[in-house]
């Protein structure tokens, strides 16, 4: 009968709340030291101290914390990781440098890498020593993942890569890439056949990164050009030509975390601050609705983390969380702008809310595009409902 969407009201256990207090203390220390400015999200993410920060986070055991101990992980729960992620995000901590490796590249390697690769790479991620980027989109293909053309030609001992990846966030400062390359032509029966995931050492001869500026002023995007770049056989992840089988699990991990609805959160805090303790009815209603929506998304997201912890693969639920979450965080600057329209401004320097709003507004367009567009997510949800 039912399309059966479950969002059990998972509660974070006491171990999580203890960890939360530890995280807050750590972040307070880092802020006091000047590692990053929590009130300046743009500057914070580009902190010059990010690499050293990553090492200190790693020293706490907080990178790869859910991974097997034999690779340096701590085998802690998804719920504990959830708590750290949301606290770090709300503080605007410079996690960009290790976040991709921690969230998705590491888990992919654990699942599909050879033992040699796992032993070589995972401990270094855990120590905060190396960072990863994701090479999927190309000039001719983004959402249509399996139309990728960058070629991996078989040679003795490995593959030669030729082609171009684009929009590759942080490639210019990454040590490795998880790259999706074409090892065979698609077949008539399966248009998704023929793509293979690889671990790419970004220092390999023949790889060039060209940075692409974004309209927000961020400098994450890159064009990555491959010219006869050699990757050894050992660096294949999973089945050759079978990357399409790997997509689902990874996406559940990637799609539903708190970072998917907290990217512009700081404008809500600043709005409440600017409104003061007695807002007018219009502003109060606006704040109340936004907090109700935020709380609900968070409860959904924690529920999905609970499902992942229980070993499930909540593909539809996590896609829903990302769909709702990214639309909310995208629209938040606009709603906050409306609600702040009648706040008496101090004359003089541009006040914090206006500055934060300007940045969030410029970042907003990418939020429903990165990591899987709304249109693709809704297709996944539709399939999950039995509509395709």
């Amino acid at each position, binding site marked *: 009968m039912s399309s059966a969407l479950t969002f059990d*009201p998972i509660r974070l256990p006491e171990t999580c709340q203890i960890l939360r207090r530890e995280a807050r203390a750590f972040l307070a220390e880092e802020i006091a030291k000047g590692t990053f400015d929590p009130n300046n999200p743009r500057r914070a993410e580009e902190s010059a101290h990010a690499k050293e920060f990553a090492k200190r986070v790693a020293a706490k055991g907080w990178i790869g914390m859910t991974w097997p101990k034999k690779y340096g992980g701590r085998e802690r729960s998804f719920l504990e990781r959830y708590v750290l992620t949301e606290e770090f995000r709300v503080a605007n901590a410079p996690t960009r440098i290790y976040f991709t490796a921690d969230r998705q590249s590491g888990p992919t390697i654990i699942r599909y890498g050879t033992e040699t690769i796992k032993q070589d790479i995972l401990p270094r991620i855990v120590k905060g020593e190396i960072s990863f980027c994701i090479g999927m989109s190309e000039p001719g293909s983004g959402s249509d993942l399996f139309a990728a053309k960058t070629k991996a030609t078989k040679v003795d001992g490995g593959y030669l890569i030729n082609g171009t990846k684009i929009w590759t966030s942080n490639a210019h400062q990454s040590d490795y890439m998880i790259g999706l390359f074409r090892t065979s032509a698609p077949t008539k029966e399966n248009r998704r056949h023929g793509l293979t995931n690889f671990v790419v050492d970004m220092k390999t001869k023949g790889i060039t990164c060209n940075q692409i500026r974004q309209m927000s002023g961020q400098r994450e995007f890159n064009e990555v050009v491959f010219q006869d770049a050699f990757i050894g056989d050992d660096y294949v992840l999973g089945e050759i030509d079978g990357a399409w089988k790997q997509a689902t699990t990874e996406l559940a991990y990637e799609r539903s975390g708190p970072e998917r609805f907290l990217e512009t959160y700081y404008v809500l*805090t600043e709005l409440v601050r600017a409104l003061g303790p007695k807002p007018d009815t219009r502003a109060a209603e606006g704040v109340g609705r936004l907090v109700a929506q935020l709380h609900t998304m968070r409860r959904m997201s924690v529920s999905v983390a609970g499902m992942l912890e229980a070993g499930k693969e909540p593909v539809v639920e996590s896609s829903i969380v990302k769909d709702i979450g990214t639309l909310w965080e995208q629209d938040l600057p606009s709603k906050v702008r409306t609600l702040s329209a009648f706040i008496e401004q101090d004359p003089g320097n541009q006040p914090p809310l206006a500055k934060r709003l300007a940045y969030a507004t410029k970042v907003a367009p990418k939020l429903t595009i990165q990591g899987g567009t709304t249109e693709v997510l809704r297709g996944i949800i539709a399939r999950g409902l039995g509509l395709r």
Partner: protein
Amino acid sequence: MGESDHIVAEAAEKILADLADPQTVNSAKDDSWKAKLWSALEENGLTLPWVAENRGGSGASLAEGFEVLTAAGKFALAVPLAETMLAGWLLSQADIASPVGAMSVAPTHPKDKIALNLDGTLSGRARNVPFAREAQHFALLAQGPKGTSIALVKASNCRRDEDVNLAGEPLDSLILDKVSPDKIAPAPKGFDQTALMLMGGVVRSLQIAGALQTMLDRTVTYANERTAFERKISRFQAVQHNLARLAGEVAAATAAAGSAADTLSGAPAFDDDATYLEATAAKIRCAEAAGTGSAIAHQVHGAIGFTEEHVLHRFTLRALGWRDDFGNESYWAVELGNRISARGADDLWPLVASR
């Protein structure tokens, strides 16, 4: 929640499937199905789950009762089950025994007040009391010089201005003119009208979530069966995306209502900020989901879903009407917003993260 916790809900769903099938009810020529249904609900202890056995109820847990309410929403139940449950709960707060039969509860509007007069009678006007004319008794919250009281009154002692809600169900205003209660007792310390409104709001949130779940199921089924332009309409991307949005609203309502119910099942103080956040957020978010979700369900169904003969309106109009009971979402958003602002910006995240 363990496996055995769903026994009560499963029993309820079976009875509802047998005796409250929405299509059957929609096509019924008269109201005779109501008596049969009510008897079955009463016999199975489903009308007073939140009342102790020695006070006339079946002594089930808050969590079990909340599941029954979701089931009631799933079936767009058109009898005062939620209202009787809520009335029984209110009476139990003051250890007043619950009578047999249908009940409703008042006030249901945050700003309405029923006064306890010095002579022990009750006076006042309570708007929008659901199923008032089908109830034999009312459980009331009254304010007197010594504080808040809870009272049981006979429906026949109260005057009514009759009206209906969006779904055509009774939604009458009660006028009490020095009505003598059957029973009256002080409310427990700290129990006030806000507590009643929040509990009623969570009840309605669960009903809305249940109704939305059925809307989603029926709309998916319809889209997979209906042909247009030589294919099932479920093949069109525009339709798929609308259904994905509907699924999102159902998910949000289910999560918000479930989280609030889970919070209240632990019997916390209603005035606690965390409880307040959970209960108000559920009402606000479920009301928003009811609006968006109902519109999508109707859009996908096209003209046939707009007919009286089709059952869709039973779900959509109830969900939309339930938004207004026990304080609408604008009211609660203002209250929540004020509370957030009073706590200050630096306390916002800690409050949200505490859940």
